[in-house]
């Protein structure tokens, strides 16, 4: 028994193209550490240098956004499904500030 992690397409080049990874961990944060151990470099895409999640990365635990739960401290257990999903944004700052 373990936690199922669904990997988004843009990250599958780190996971030998696997879309689902099985890991054991107690929290989402630990899960990301496990993921990094197994696939070095992957979490650099997900976290800022200070460890916070990047602005346009969302993580869902059994379908719920972890920002509504306990963030990276959200608990996971055997059978939990975790999805990593890049957020869609259109972005438009003052591109013409010149």
């Amino acid at each position, binding site marked *: 028994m373990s936690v199922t992690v669904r990997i988004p397409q843009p990250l599958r080049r780190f996971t030998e193209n696997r879309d689902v990874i099985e890991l054991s961990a107690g929290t989402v944060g630990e899960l990301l550490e496990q993921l990094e151990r197994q696939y070095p470099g992957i979490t650099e895409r997900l976290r800022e240098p200070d460890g916070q999640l990047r602005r346009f990365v969302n993580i869902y635990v059994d379908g719920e*956004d972890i920002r509504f739960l306990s963030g990276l401290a959200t608990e996971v257990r055997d059978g939990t499904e975790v999805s990593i*999903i890049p*957020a869609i944004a*259109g972005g438009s700052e003052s591109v013409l500030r010149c």
Partner: protein
Amino acid sequence: MAQATNTVEAETRSYVTGLRCRLCRAEYPERPVAICEECFGPLEVEYDYAALVRVISRELIASRPPTMWRYRELLPLGVPPRVGAETGYTPLVPAPRLGAALGLKNLYIKNDGVCHPTLSFKDRVVAVSLSKACEFGFDTVGCASTGNLANSVAANAARAGLKAYVFIPEMLEQAKILGTQIYGARVIAIRGTYDDVNRLCSEIVYTLNWGLVNVNLRPFYSEGSKTVGFEIAEQLGWRAPDAVVVPMAGGSLLTKIHKSFAELQHLGLIPPARPRLFGAQARGCNPIVAAIREGSEEIRPVKPRTIAHSLAIGDPADGYFAMRAIRESGGWAEDATDEEIREGIRLLAETEGIFTETAGGVTVAVTKKLAEQGRLSPDETIILTITGNGLKTMEALTASPPITIAPKIAEVERLLREGI
């Protein structure tokens, strides 16, 4: 119309140089992708402004038919629009009676509630994105929608002969469901909120070869919103207003109106100005307003609870950028309760004869608050962006039963005596 179409064909040429990540600046060629592969940041269309400044002029624009395509050099299309050639250039209506009620002397309504063909500003973004979908060779298109986008994608896909799959949250107004199905689109309701729909759609584009207008076609789609700002400036006689009040769902419209004024200034089409952008949300779904009030850098997602379904996005895609645009421009953001939204709809209808949907009620109610707070001054030129039509959200209001009488003149006289 044939002549107008020919003009479009003769002059169409793209000034797009590619896509660029807003965060890490990585560059990409034009293709249906919205997310940077390096950092997951959003991709934005880039133009060759040096070439544009030599080509574009007020006279050139004014010589063209009154549609959004009069600004075609500033839109990301390399071929004539496949759909929506008649879209845009909606009325900018002086609103003196609403202005008197709010204490604002130079108030205007930008009325996209009469946009062609589906009565909301979404016709603009769909005109660009579905034309782009045809350019990329998609035969199936779709969207994640709170309703207005669904209507527009369905109608325009029908006209282009494209197959459409439209994903909506399960709680949506009947008019918006019927107004999507009527065009032959497959409407799929998702158990959950718009945010769940959006999340599903962002997974779909990696699985199916579909052009989802606000997902993998988003960089092109969102550019269509700039035409709201272009038109406001041209209709004011080529100048920026002092302030614009914009309803916010994902926040994209506000950021693109901000960009539109910056582009017009950069190209010398309007004099330098600093229009303030004001964002409007429903109290029951106000993540961007909350961040502005708290001075926070983070947009905390919420679970929406409001009658303004078209604004019920709890995790706004462009919330961060909308917040930045509001702050940079010197604007502010406010919210409105459901009751204030209903009052706003009635006030606009009774003073200016424009029946707007719930999102418009939010905009009117928020403008009232901003005026009361002194954030809008009486003599300033102020624009209310009305983005949708009231006939689509009738459930939000209750009709009073009409007085019924016999067809006799005496009955009418009796009513008048009773003071009705």
